[in-house]
């Protein structure tokens, strides 16, 4: 068997295992879904009138704010599900079965690839569910073509993949599940200090670089452009660049951690 077929076959087996775990124990996935949905409802129905004053020069209404908010919430959903990946990787690494996998003639990276692909699938399912809630409360895209929808979905998958590789590394350096959850916290906090809730222009000047030079802002702006027809400009390439960079970094980090002697 060539090493590529071996990699694909073993990774598919490991993916089946990850999916089986998620299927048998859906509570982790559902818990992670709760946060973005609550935030969506909170910002629309409780803070909606105030928040809408901050965009479009104060002439926007609540439905305009829903449109502004949803792309950020969708990316936040990905950040949340990815934390779940960090937790399950760290739990998996402490299991005895990991020693068994390491002593079997299987593709070395398959355990991690199984986790990553499983996490991306979970993120996309979560995005669909949160998106359905958004549509139910009045979110509509502005003349997005099928191609733009496809690109939006592709972007979300790319972000999920990039963040998951980072989360897998975080999960592997963490001694236990709690530590993994804490270490992956920035993936939940970063969207708050991005353009998810308010435009970067509305933030204090000293803070703007934090919001501008991080992966979530260009990804959110790109998603807005695709779904709402706003200007994407350089944000598209910037978002893709961030994702590829983070994915490469996370992949190298995680696989080198995995090939070290276990504790």
């Amino acid at each position, binding site marked *: 068997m060539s090493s590529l077929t071996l990699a694909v076959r073993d990774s598919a087996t490991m993916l089946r*295992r990850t999916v089986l775990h998620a299927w048998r124990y859906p509570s982790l996935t559902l818990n992670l879904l709760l946060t973005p949905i609550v935030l969506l409802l909170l910002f629309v129905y409780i803070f909606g009138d105030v928040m809408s004053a901050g965009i479009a020069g104060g002439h926007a209404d609540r439905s305009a704010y829903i449109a502004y908010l949803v792309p950020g919430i969708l990316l936040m959903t990905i950040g949340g599900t990815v934390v779940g990946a960090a937790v399950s990787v760290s739990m998996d690494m402490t*299991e*005895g079965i990991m020693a*068994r996998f390491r*002593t079997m003639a299987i593709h070395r990276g398959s355990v991690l690839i199984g986790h990553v692909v499983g996490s991306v699938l979970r993120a996309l399912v979560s995005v669909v569910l949160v998106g359905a809630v958004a549509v139910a409360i009045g979110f509509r895209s502005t003349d997005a073509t099928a191609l733009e929808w496809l690109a939006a979905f592709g972007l979300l998958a790319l972000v999920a993949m990039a963040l998951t590789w980072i989360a897998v590394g975080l999960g592997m350096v963490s001694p236990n599940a709690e530590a993994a959850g804490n270490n992956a916290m920035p993936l939940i906090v970063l969207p708050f200090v991005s353009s998810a809730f308010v435009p970067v222009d509305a933030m204090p000047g000293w803070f703007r670089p934090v919001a501008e030079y991080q992966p979530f802002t260009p990804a959110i702006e790109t998603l807005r452009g695709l779904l709402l027809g706003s200007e994407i400009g350089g944000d598209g390439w910037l978002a893709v660049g961030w994702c590829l960079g983070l994915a490469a970094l996370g992949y190298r980090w995680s696989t080198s951690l995995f090939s070290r*002697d*276990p504790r």
Partner: protein
Amino acid sequence: MTTTPDAPAIAARGLHKSYGGKHSGKDGGKGPKKVLDGIDLAVPRGTIFSLLGPNGAGKTTVVKILSTLVTADAGDLRVGGHDLAADPQAVRAMIGVTGQFSAVDGLITGEENMLLMADLHHLPRREGRRTAAELLERFDLVEAAKKPASTYSGGMRRRLDIAMTLVGAPRIIFLDEPTTGLDPRSRHSMWGIIRELVSGGVTVFLTTQYLEEADELADRIAVLNDGRIAAEGSADELKRLVPGGHVRLRFTDPAAYRSAAVALREVTRDDEALSLQIPSDGSQRELRSILDWLDSAGVEADELTVHTPDLDDVFFALTGGTDQREDVR
């Protein structure tokens, strides 16, 4: 394959391993801790080899290294004819490992664990299902097959663990303390399983802290103590290393004990237990001469027992010096 027919299944020369060397601080931090200090082993094909030693002797480290889980610092190591350092993946294709801590996925069922192994061994679907079903049957897990492995008892988990190891029909099996923590019944059924494996031509590398287990199962035994092999040989060879065979006479009446002790003179006295020990190899001829001697001396013991040296004697004789160090740790 690069194997020659008479090459040992497992061969190690000069195996060294230390832990914690890299992280020791320069401000008087302890140096690396030597765990294995030059180990030589050779295990012929189709035999059971037992590595015996107290807790902390390094048994698990030997298994981890030989099963490619951790890398050795030094040593010429070959498993199944393949060099461990150069081609670990070829070694992995030949071995099966059941570690001290159960290597089953507790979140999925026993059957799903078995099918996972079948998939990872790239068995065709139908063959994988058949193998899984056969092994579940053989290890008495059919009833529990549809339940999550986390709900299994200790003995069931261990059986599932071994069953999973056998899915790929490995030629060399490492068992790290396979019966630790099992009740007597599960232990005996595990022994039966291990004997069955070897009758099929498999090589078994077994670690244990139970002398009885090594005596019962192993063709050859190595006593590991403090990172070195203290002795190696068959159970009988090891027993010959230490004196300890004797006939023991026990008395209930102190007066009878005293007169016997005076009459027999060159025996070892245990005044507290009112017993006398006469050195003996336990053979019938020697026993008869002892009995004749006792008769002629007019000694009538209340109880006579023959004690042949067992592995306990060997074990304590070989590892006794480190008792104190064990306590300090």
